[in-house]
């Protein structure tokens, strides 16, 4: 994709983020951090592509997971580790945010 197009999206998204997030009240700042943190786990998209993509011509098997018949090149191993980290980020982030927000429910 054209660099300028990507840059445009980047800059506009920052403005949108600025507008939306300045409206979050201080009492919700902690859930905002953990929730936005979960969103930054979007790197999982890249991780899935790195982990799941087929090996290219000059890649070699770097590691075999015994018992599972899974053969990994170095790039796939990096991608696989990234999937784990990003998933912890996503799942942990959204769940803990949910847990916190439950506490902010009005108790009547």
């Amino acid at each position, binding site marked *: 994709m054209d660099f300028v197009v990507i840059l445009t999206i*980047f800059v506009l998204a920052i403005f949108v983020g600025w507008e939306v997030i300045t409206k979050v009240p201080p009492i919700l700042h902690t859930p905002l951090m953990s929730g936005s943190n979960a969103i930054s786990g979007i790197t999982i998209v890249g991780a899935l592509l790195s982990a*799941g993509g087929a090996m290219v011509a000059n890649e070699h098997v770097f590691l075999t997971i015994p018992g599972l018949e899974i053969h990994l090149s170095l790039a796939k191993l990096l991608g696989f580790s990234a999937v784990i980290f990003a998933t912890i980020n996503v799942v942990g982030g959204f769940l803990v945010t949910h847990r916190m927000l439950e506490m902010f429910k009005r108790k009547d």
Partner: protein
Amino acid sequence: MVLPQAIINIAYLIASILFIAGLKGLSHPRTAIRGNLMGGLGMLIAILATVASKKLDLELIILGIVVGSAIGAVLATKIQMTAMPQMVALLNGFGGIASVLVAGAELLKSVLNPETPDPDLQTLVAIAASGFIGGVTFWGSLVAFGKLQGVGVPDRPVRYSGEQIVKVLLLLISIALAVLIVMDPHDTYLYWVLAGVASVLGVLLVIAIGGADMPVVIALLNSYSGLAAAATGFVLSNNVLIIAGSLVGASGIILTDIMCRAMNRSLANVLFGGFGEIVISSTGDDVYGGKVKSTSAEELAMLLETAQRVVFVPGYGMAVSQAQHAVRDMFNLLESRGITVEFAIHPVAGRMPGHMNVLLAEADIPYDKLIEMDDINPTMGQVDVAIVLGANDVVNPLARTDPKSPIAGMPIIDVDRAKTVIIIKRSLSPGFAGIPNPLFAADNALMLFGDGKKVIQECVAALKEAS
């Protein structure tokens, strides 16, 4: 099943919209849960779209997701609310390392693949940026985690002579490495050297910062984890990564700015200088000498019985002594007797933005009782009893009166204007800023020495007995 790219892109667009709408939902406690769920749904859509975009090795992906989900779910359900700053620090770090790994994998693959041309300038710059930002974020977050959890690294700032020069040098080395990578991407090990140098820089940046400045650091690392994701988006030319990453980047920067303003300090001052390292030896004798009056939990109970409006000012000390549930009992008791009870929350109270609010919400305090500093200050004069619980610098009147003080100009909660101020504290020791607090010696102030939780419990017992 492999779907056409146009459909995948539309799915990414929907995911991006859900992220934005989800964050918008966080602007009110009533809509916040739905907002968070929308964010989660957006993530699910993005993941499914990615899996459907190409023929991918699903076994491996599922294995990774299962392992990651299990760890994430255990962390999220087991973590104590008081430990939330550590949890957020750790999650920031995981986002950072994921970016380092993805960019590294992308570099390896594109260089090894004889069928594709070498990555272009944009991609290479973005790869170097991912490695650098991700490395700083990961290791910076681990150090922040260590400081907050009290493992491995000291809570106090670690300072040494020439530290700023070391950091500038590491930054220059990183830039040089990035230039080398862009000029010849085939030496892929340079990428890992870059990530390593960034890691060292991340450690040095955070280790120099004291525990009470952690709200700024965590907010900043939050921003970095977003920027790392956006950089990875530039590597992969992927819109949803760029949009989600910039949203988080903006969020973190806004919080960082709010935290800095709440201390009247610049970001540079928090990161590279500031008062964190100073342990002022000047004894508080000239401030406190003979003027400090102390009281007991029973006397506090008597004061409260005749009060009409009571305000709590919680600080990190409340989290340390886990006093929030005892405070809730006292809150319920006083409210049941028709006394108005409110909580005045300073933006930097605690170890992360919003820390006190979460603890009090956990203890079932209704959120409309949590009042921001600027909203409660104008009416502090009508407060009968202000109870400062584990806070110090955020109620120090020197911020208003002494232009030479390290906290000069910092907005504070004006508890000194209340009719009576009770300060629950173990001793007269100074807070993070290392300066004495003349509030403790004020005519309307009474010190209540002891552990926060124990003192509040004793006071509740005395209140019950008296009725």
